[in-house]
């Protein structure tokens, strides 16, 4: 299997530790411009998932992302040196940032900048987006965010805590504003 995308404007191949499922579409390998994951699997997606223009995987050496089936990422930035898990049917809108820390920065491209590594050193960070979650535009998910099945995160909400299944979280700081079903 070719590690290049036929439609790609950027001339790089997919990183070796990236696995895209059947019929999954990635707009460009530019998404891995700051990808530094050295895990066996840095990114794995299921089948029929769309990773559209504006999506970036700015992972540190320990960064690991798994994305399920039938997910849509319209242009999220995932910046982690820990684990990010996204369940099946997730819809993640424009300009969402999923990051270990509030002042996250992209990988440092091999350069040793102590101040940056200070905010990028978390190795235990874990962010979980469960099945069928909808994340609104410009929302920010930080370490500790665990979005329950079927929940909705409102536009521009900031979340770093557990959101119960089938509820709506909104605002900054985020708070639970309603239940979708009981």
């Amino acid at each position, binding site marked *: 299997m070719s590690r290049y995308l036929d439609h790609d404007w950027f001339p790089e191949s997919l990183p070796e530790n990236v696995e895209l499922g059947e019929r999954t579409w990635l707009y460009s390998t530019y998404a891995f411009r700051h990808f530094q994951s050295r895990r066996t699997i840095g990114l794995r997606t299921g089948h029929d998932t769309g990773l559209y223009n504006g999506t970036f995987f700015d992972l540190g050496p320990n960064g690991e992302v798994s994305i399920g089936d039938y997910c849509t990422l319209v242009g999220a930035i995932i910046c982690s040196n820990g684990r990010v898990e996204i369940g099946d049917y997730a819809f993640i809108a424009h300009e969402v*940032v999923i990051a270990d820390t509030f002042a996250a920065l992209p990988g440092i491209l091999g350069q040793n900048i102590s101040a940056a590594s200070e905010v990028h050193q978390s190795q235990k960070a874990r962010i979980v987006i469960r099945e069928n979650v909808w994340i609104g535009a410009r929302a920010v998910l930080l370490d500790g965010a665990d979005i329950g099945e079927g929940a909705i995160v409102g536009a521009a909400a900031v979340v770093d805590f557990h959101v119960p299944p089938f509820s709506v979280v909104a605002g900054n700081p985020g708070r639970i504003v309603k239940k979708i079903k009981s």
Partner: protein
Amino acid sequence: MSQAKYDVEPVTGQWDYDSLPSNIRVGQHCWIERRDSFGSFRSQQDPGLVLGNRVRVYTWTTFNVEPTGRMEVGDDCILAGPVFMCAERIAVGQRVMISYQVTIADSDFHPIDPEERKRDAVANAPFGDRSQRPAYQTRPVVIEDDVWIGIGAIILKGVRVGRGARIGAGAVLTSDVPPGAMVIGNPARVAHEDIT
């Protein structure tokens, strides 16, 4: 298929920084990922922008500087994704880290008064006469040394962020932040007086 359809140097930091306008001063050992970060740089001041030494500028960063604007960014800053909108002056100190999707503006760029805003809309039309735009207010923004600005924060005109302060994700700032404080939320409020 491995051949480049596009010239990738302008998006990988490997372009010639000396090709920037002469009123942009780039310090030593800077790395600027995307040339188009300066696509809306229109400053007529000299210097219009000074980048210190070892500044790292990532792909999402944008310098929208009006003809009247002047900007400076100190040594060892890391700019992941600020959009600067500058009509007068935005000064960023040393070792400042600015995360993704941040906006920093020293003006609202449009008048408050409804009638003036109509005139502004007409002057700003695709074939309008922009010399007829009404005046708008500007107030400089100052970010002092060692500040960290979180994902998606918005910093508006006249704000001074004190040394070592931390601005939480999505915070919206319309007033000064004391040195060493952590602020969060919209509208931003001080969560911790002194995090040092």
